């Protein structure tokens, strides 16, 4: 098993939950990253400002943690560019078509006991597990290296 720091994982999760709670309580918005990112790409104008600020905060928060603990996350390099681009396209189209990603469906949706989010979360986790199996152990082993 990979080296595993359950406390950081749990504490990070709690912070994500506090962020989602703050955004809904303060602004009445769901903290779904694909919806927020899709929103700035789709509807420029007055309603885009809070989305840009959230995204700026996302970068600042991650940068702040990196600065506090520079060895916590090692940047991955050399992953095939075609796979990164293809993955980005799939995630971009898929999350917009499916109305959410890990944060919107997986965190906020499950917290609201939304049946749509429960089904979406089950589907994307299951498909991701199958794809990882295919490219690591199955017939496509070695394709993404």
């Amino acid at each position, binding site marked *: 098993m990979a080296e595993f720091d359950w406390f950081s994982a749990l504490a990070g999760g709690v912070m994500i939950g506090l962020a989602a709670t703050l955004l809904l309580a303060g*602004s009445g918005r769901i903290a779904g990253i694909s919806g927020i990112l899709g929103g700035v790409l789709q509807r420029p104008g007055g309603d885009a400002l809070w989305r840009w600020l959230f995204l700026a905060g996302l970068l600042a928060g991650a940068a702040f943690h990196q600065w506090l603990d520079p060895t916590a996350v090692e940047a991955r390099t050399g992953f095939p560019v075609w796979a990164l681009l293809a*993955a980005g396209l799939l995630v971009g189209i898929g999350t917009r078509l499916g109305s959410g*990603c890990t944060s919107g469906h997986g965190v906020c949706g499950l917290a609201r006991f939304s049946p749509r989010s429960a089904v979406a979360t089950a589907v994307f986790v299951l498909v991701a597990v199958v794809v990882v199996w295919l490219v690591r152990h199955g017939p496509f082993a070695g394709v993404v290296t």
Partner: protein
Amino acid sequence: MNGLIALVAGVLFGFGLDLARMTDPERVLGFLDIAGTWDPTLVFVLAGAVVTTTIGFRLIGRGDSWFGGPMRLPQRSDIDRPLLLGAALFGAGWGLAGYCPGPGVAALVQGAADPFWFVGGLVLGMIIFARTPRRGSGATA
């Protein structure tokens, strides 16, 4: 005020993602790799986030937000084809590279090239979706 709330929420979210190692795609792939050396980190991230959000949302109740007027919550409960197809496409991309949207964007601060390729594809995919004419449109989660 809405802008300040969004900024602070974003900072908390980004800090939490990095603290939880979600910005390390190899760790995420390790969680999804149940046939290999399974890494349970993500279970704790998800549990911490979902439990906290469930309690938080419960405490907020259903009235107006502090500064943003009425809460804009998705109202739909039907399981339709776009939901299933979209979730499947997203899962395929997530399993391929180990990034979902939040961690992909947050990983940009690592300064390496990999997250930029992913986020480039992500933005392109969203623009393609926005420009594709389609019947009806889903609520955004």
